[in-house]
């Protein structure tokens, strides 16, 4: 999320040259801790604030106010000729952990499955590990099958998936191109299969999506308020799209 925050800050400073926004990384925990200690005006977070963090903040006289500024969804992609059109989260988890090794086990052709993943340093990798491979369960210790290909870029994943009928990959929804096919995903067998799109991410039906937050200390005022209002403008939400995230749809 730090890249999105940086892109926003850059664009806002270009539009308002007198205002200076500095952005630092370090992860959600770092950002919220800084808000609790009142050393920052805005904390970016890729998860909701925890109740204990909120309690710490209150004890410190800080009252965190939440804004959902963008959404992030992961699309599961396969070769366009692959007959598989839908998968459950459990099936995707079993594919990536190495329990399912052939496409014919999940209604496809008799082909080996080639698993593609982003490198371990990517935020998308970690999110996929926690939410898909481990199904969001805290004490689930499922690991990626060691033969999972770790590709250094989104480009590498798209290239291999568009070329290789055996491959399955995942990527931020904004990075998906027409050369690959997205798979509809269901929470469990009983639920319906949903294709990722800006609409299904915004109404919360697509299962592999999360919200990206900003927290301020109480109702923001002055330039901070202006900045946050600007974040919801079409120009700022277009940056969200360009960075591979899902823009907030105005209701």
């Amino acid at each position, binding site marked *: 999320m730090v890249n999105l925050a940086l892109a926003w800050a850059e664009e806002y400073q270009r539009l308002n040259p007198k205002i200076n926004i500095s952005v630092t990384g370090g992860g959600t925990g770092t950002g919220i801790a800084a808000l609790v200690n009142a050393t920052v005006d805005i904390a970016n977070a890729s998860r909701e604030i925890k109740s204990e963090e909120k309690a710490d903040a209150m004890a410190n006289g800080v009252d965190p106010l939440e804004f959902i500024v963008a959404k992030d969804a992961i699309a599961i992609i396969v070769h366009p000729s692959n007959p598989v059109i839908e998968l459950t989260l459990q099936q995707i988890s079993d594919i990536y952990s190495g329990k399912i090794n052939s496409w014919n086990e999940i209604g496809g052709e008799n082909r080996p499955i080639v698993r593609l993943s982003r*490198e*371990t*340093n990517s935020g998308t990798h970690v999110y996929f590990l926690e939410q898909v491979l481990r199904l969001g369960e805290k004490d689930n210790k499922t690991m990626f099958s060691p033969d999972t*290909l770790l590709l*250094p870029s989104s480009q590498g994943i798209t290239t*291999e998936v568009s*070329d290789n009928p*055996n491959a399955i990959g995942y990527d931020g929804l904004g990075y998906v191109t027409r050369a690959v096919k997205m798979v509809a995903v269901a929470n469990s067998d009983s639920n319906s299969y949903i294709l990722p799109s800006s609409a299904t991410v915004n109404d919360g039906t697509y299962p592999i999506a999360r919200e990206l937050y900003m927290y301020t200390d109480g109702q923001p005022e002055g330039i901070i308020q202006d900045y946050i209002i600007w974040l919801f403008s079409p120009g700022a939400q277009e940056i969200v799209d360009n960075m591979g995230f899902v823009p907030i749809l105005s209701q």
Partner: protein
Amino acid sequence: MSEKSISRDLYISRIIQACGYSAIIFVLMIFYFLISEGIPTLREVSAQSLFGKIWYPIEGYYGIWPLIAGSLLVTLGATLIAVPIGLATAIFIAEVAPRWLREILKPFVEILAGIPSVVLGFIGLMLMAHYLRVTLDLPTGLTAIAGSILLGFISVPTIVSVAEDALDAVPRSYRDASLALGVTKWQTIWNVTLPAARSGVLTAIMLGIGRTIGETMAVMMVTGNAPVIPNSFASFFAPIRTMTATIAAEMGEVATGSTHYHVLFFIGILLFIITFLVNVTAASVVFRQRKRVERILS
């Protein structure tokens, strides 16, 4: 000579001297840096887990064995590809090709040497991976063999230019004497010229191997980077992960001073040791050869 020009002479020779010593200083500084950042690994990670079979640093699995084996496998494959092609090209250029063809071939080999490896990696990713998968009927083309072929291409120019120089330096009289005995041109090349140039040819091969094991970008793009331990010949046709690709992929995001950071430097130390051993081997081969020649001549 005036006093001024003598003192200028002194300055210039001092500066040149300093430049000469700087290589030693830089190597020592790099080595010190690697050691100081990498050695904490031995305190933070037990030897058993360090040489374990699983590399998954974000969960604390620091088994470097798959990475070492991956690097060695790709290098072995690249050597098997590059040495025959490189030597054959060098022999052709030095011994067989007519003069005009030699004048064309040599610059082309040098151009090949100058192609950035990331460009070769891109070609490998876009074209070679596809053809390998289709022609060999593999699950994926991003495999060790793809890395070996690319690295072979990267090290061929090194092998060709060094080996060609060595062959060229063999005195004309050796070949004349051999041909005068009535043997064929090929027998002369194989039994006289090549053995006479042996030390230079071995140096060429060693330099080629050194180039191969340290290459990063092209390998990262085409080998799939899956930390699997290769266990048989079939592993050539499966994805692997090399030491260099691991450092390049993970160093950018790692927190300075963390265990993961130290382990990446530790891998750097291992790479340094491996290339150092390759260079020492190359140097000792040349040295031994020279001593024998000197013995015969005296």
